């Protein structure tokens, strides 16, 4: 007789739990038809990788600015951590709410795919921006910049800063980083074709590690005494290199440019270590993404290659191959405009 005094209570509890499930089911059947669709025809939900990230705060600001212009509304939701699955419940919610469009920067190209497709089945237009998913999971990808544009802009900046002649080096991220390697290849081609007096003497890898990038910068400068410029197409690298230069004898003598964020680079631009560097403007990116979403909702475009639409102040855009819209060439930050940005 080891039966306790709990079985009855447990049974009753399970029965209750079951009945909740059943009533829930019944209720669902009643309300099912009325609930879907929702009232959010032109509503756009912004779903960044995570909240509290200044970069995405800027893109949402851009989206809101666009919405003000075309008369829609923007709601920003998102997880507090950028884990691969954390966006799924927000995508599901958007599908439940029946919003007009979902503008998302994907934490994982595949993990959110099914959820996005379910949302599209429920009539939600899906625009990815900043970070894409697999192409079959979204209507349009709004890309910050294409590889050619990024490579060309960096070469242009360094050429201008060193007077189109002399030795330069590249401080990259990891040796097998796909993005960086593609840009480096394009930069080499551009240099060879258009800047005969500039010699690329070395490419080193800081692995996107602050200390290693710092050390690699020091090694570069002692190894190549005639070095006139460094290009670092990675935000970690350019900040570390700037930190080294700003405290060394090379400050102001060796030019540094590349891809960086205004918050990391502000002090080095102000103290004269760096004159100009590039990145896309996240506010414009959000602005364009919102206009793209609106064009999809309004039926102005279907997201197919060749469709074109107007995006307010940014002008006219065309959907390219793989249903990608490219924002344009990178944005150049300098002493004049750096205080307008906070990301």
């Amino acid at each position: 007789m080891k039966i306790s005094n709990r079985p009855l209570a447990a049974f009753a509890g399970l029965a209750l739990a079951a009945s909740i499930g059943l009533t829930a089911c019944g209720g669902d059947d009643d309300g099912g038809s009325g609930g879907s669709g929702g009232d959010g025809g032109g509503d756009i939900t912004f779903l960044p990788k995570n909240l509290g990230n200044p970069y995405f705060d800027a893109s949402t600001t851009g989206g809101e600015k666009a919405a003000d212009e075309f008369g829609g509304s923007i709601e920003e939701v998102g997880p507090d951590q950028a884990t691969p699955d954390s966006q799924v419940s927000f995508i599901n919610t958007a599908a439940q709410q029946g919003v007009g469009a979902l503008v998302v920067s994907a934490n994982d190209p595949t993990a959110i795919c099914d959820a996005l497709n379910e949302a599209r089945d429920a009539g939600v237009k899906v625009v990815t921006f900043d970070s894409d998913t697999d192409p079959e999971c979204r209507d349009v990808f709004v890309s910050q910049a294409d590889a050619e544009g990024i490579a060309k802009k960096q070469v242009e900046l360094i050429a201008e800063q060193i007077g189109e002649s002399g030795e330069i080096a590249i401080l990259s991220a990891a040796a097998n980083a796909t993005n960086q390697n593609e840009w480096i290849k394009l930069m080499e081609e551009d240099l060879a074709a258009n800047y005969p007096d500039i010699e690329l003497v070395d490419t080193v890898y800081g692995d996107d590690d602050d200390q290693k990038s710092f050390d690699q910068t020091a090694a570069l400068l002692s190894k190549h005494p005639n070095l006139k410029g460094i290009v670092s197409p990675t935000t970690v690298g350019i900040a570390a290199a700037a930190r080294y230069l700003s405290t060394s004898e090379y400050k102001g003598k060796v030019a540094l440019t590349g891809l960086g964020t205004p918050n990391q680079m502000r002090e080095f631009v102000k103290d004269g270590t760096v004159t100009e560097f590039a990145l896309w403007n996240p506010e414009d990116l959000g602005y364009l993404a919102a206009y793209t979403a609106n064009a999809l909702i309004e039926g102005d475009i279907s997201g197919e290659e060749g469709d074109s639409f107007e995006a307010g102040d940014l002008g006219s855009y065309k959907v390219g191959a793989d249903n990608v819209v490219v924002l344009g060439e990178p944005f150049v930050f300098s002493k004049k405009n750096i205080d307008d940005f906070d990301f």
Partner: protein
Amino acid sequence: MSMTTIDEAVNERTYADYSRPLLWRVFMTREFAIIALLVLVYFYAYGNVANFDGPLTLYYLFLDMAPIMLIALPMTLVIITGEIDLSVASIMGLTSVMLGIGYHDFGLSMPLAIVLALVVGTVCGAINGFLVAYVGLPSLAVTIGSMALFRGIAVGLLGTEAITDFDEKWTDLATQRIGGDSSYPVILIAFVVLAIAFAILLHFSTFGRGVYEIGLNDQTARFTGVKVERTKFCLFLLAGVVSGFAGIFYTLRYGSARGDNAEFYELQVIAAVLLGGVSIFGGRGALHGVIAGVLLIGVVSSALRLENVSTNITNIVIGGLLVLSVISGSVLSSVSNLRQRRAARARAPVKASHRSGQPDDGEKAASE
């Protein structure tokens, strides 16, 4: 003569079967309070939150909560013994990676890859169980260690890569609905089967009685014949297997095997278990409360998400509920202790008179 008196003494109970009537025991519990709160919140949201009555709400709610519902079952038993398992989410991550590697790199068929992943989950659970039960280390320390260890192996094996090329037949199965278009995903079938199995194990078996006894006092449990080591080992093993299963479901649902899958899920599981009325000190709790606890978290977060409330606020609400639930537990028990003591004091002379029979008259007479 003496024999008969002993028999009588055994058969004749001198105290009530239960200290409270049946209805009281069913309704005046923390478990029932959570169930009532769940019903209340559900119907409030149903009536007041736009789109909560939509056909997708319950479907997504169950899909989202399924891993937590599954792991909460063995976790309830583990916590009732007074132990804890913090490594469950890391086991999910590791089984997720093993499923991916087994399928993609070793070229195993999906069922074999699933078996491989389950074996890995079992081994993880066995390591925890061995260290806690037989080596006698505190489970908090052991599972903090294995949480980092299993996660480290998982991330180490795959790096920042993800394996995503799973057979669609299987990824579709993970998100399929019962009967094709109901609000209930098929994972619920697995959950109901496991829930019934765990309910029988915990509430209707000698093993389950042992679980409670260990939580109340493992020395006395040992003296009353409970196999303390074996019980604890089994529970950690079960936690490992179920976490492995949850990891497989998670991987197939998102179609993505990654080392950092299901990070921080252990805290959600433990929060749900505690919200469901299980005492972190062990010895008390029941599965129906825990299931209601998980569903309550699911309903609250789903409703708040539909209202576009930020995750931080959702966390505050759920955290608040958890703290309230823990506080109310100890307040209720101290109140009922107080009442019991008072009642006992009031009853004491009456009881004495009952037992002694004859002399009682004399006592009364004397007092009169």
